[in-house]
């Protein structure tokens, strides 16, 4: 696609938000970065500009105006902040792709705070009924964006959602980050994807993977 896509990243200075921003800045994208920590946001933007000199990236101090201008919105805030930010972007996110990267982990990292018959993504969809919520990037650790090939294999990035076109657009975005997109199913599959990350994090802590690990489906 020749036309630049405008992507708002809300919560851009977090581990995941900044990793996604750095990675997407390399594609044909215009990035609007929102974060509450302005100082860190400026540092992030300078970092992106020195790493990718032709990056089109701008700081925003309001999630609503960033989302209004965007074609795609990446919600990179913790699960606990989803409610508040959703109310701010609901009107301007109408019909837009909203990527849920959240993993609703509890404080001890030994379970999820969501009930077993739902997921962070499905809860977000309830808050944004006219948006196309897509689960993506949640099964990937922040370091995987700089090292998308681990032990000679490209890390898989699972995607779930209810709209075919939106799933294809997000697959394309995942591809620009160097990860391998796999469409896993409809939005309810997010329950599995969020559980998979819980397991990945637990194994990482247990086996000292040093936070560089990922999922890979082996197949013939």
């Amino acid at each position, binding site marked *: *696609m*020749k*036309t*630049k896509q*405008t992507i708002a990243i809300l919560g851009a200075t977090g581990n995941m938000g900044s990793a996604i921003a750095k990675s997407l800045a390399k594609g044909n994208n*215009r990035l609007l970065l929102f974060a509450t920590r302005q100082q860190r946001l400026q540092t992030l933007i300078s970092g992106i500009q020195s790493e990718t000199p032709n990056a089109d990236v701008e700081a925003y101090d309001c999630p609503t*105006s960033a989302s*209004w*201008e965007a*074609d795609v919105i990446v919600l990179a805030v913790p699960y606990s902040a989803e409610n508040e930010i959703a109310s701010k972007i609901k*009107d*301007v996110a*109408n*019909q*837009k792709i909203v990527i849920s990267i959240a993993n609703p982990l509890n404080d001890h990292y030994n379970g999820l705070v969501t009930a077993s018959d739902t997921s962070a993504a499905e809860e977000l969809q309830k808050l944004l009924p*006219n948006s196309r919520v897509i689960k993506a990037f949640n099964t990937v650790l922040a370091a995987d964006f700089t090292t998308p090939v681990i032990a000679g294999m490209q890390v898989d990035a699972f995607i779930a959602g209810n709209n075919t*076109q939106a799933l294809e657009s997000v697959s394309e975005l995942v591809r620009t980050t160097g990860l391998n997109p796999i469409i896993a199913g409809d939005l309810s599959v997010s329950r599995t994807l969020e559980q998979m990350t819980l397991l990945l994090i637990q194994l990482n802590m247990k086996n000292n993977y040093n936070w560089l690990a990922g999922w890979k489906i082996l197949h013939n």
Partner: protein
Amino acid sequence: MYDLFFQMFNDRVSLSLVDQDIIKAYLTPKKLKKRQYLLQEGDVCKHLAFVTKGALRSCVLDENGTEHIRQFAVEGWTIADLFSFLTEEPATHSIEAIEDSELILISKSAHEELLQKVGKYETYMRILITNAYISLQKRFTSTVSSSVEEQYEDFLKNYPDIVSRIPQHMIASYLGLTPSTISRLRARLAVKKEN
């Protein structure tokens, strides 16, 4: 956000509040900064864009890479590469914001669903596309058979409120003239008015 869109809609086809709410759920609010593209030629045009604030232009490139402006759109106007939107073939036009703009977009899938769901949306679209065809033919005919003076006067009639907003070289490109010809035309028309 949606006021002007529904005002223009109701001017042509009056809508119940229920229909209005159904339609609203399918609309995409979007902002564009000056010089940003909504569409670049070669991509498929995925949206109809209604302008609630600002101004846009659509243009084609000739074989020498020179830009020719085909349409302007300001508040209350709709702009798209209709050919590409309807056929899903690559667009031949690029659409760019010439001022910071606010738009209401209707995606192809939203358009298809609304045509099925809301009869009045279909009527509105019929009027919109009929008008687009009429102005296309008018423009085509006038470039062949009208004098440049008539074309310029037609332009003033069609775009009365934007002449002062748009740089002269863009108006010249729209009319297929050089900026100096436009200056001479303006001078001649001013004299004509005085007499």
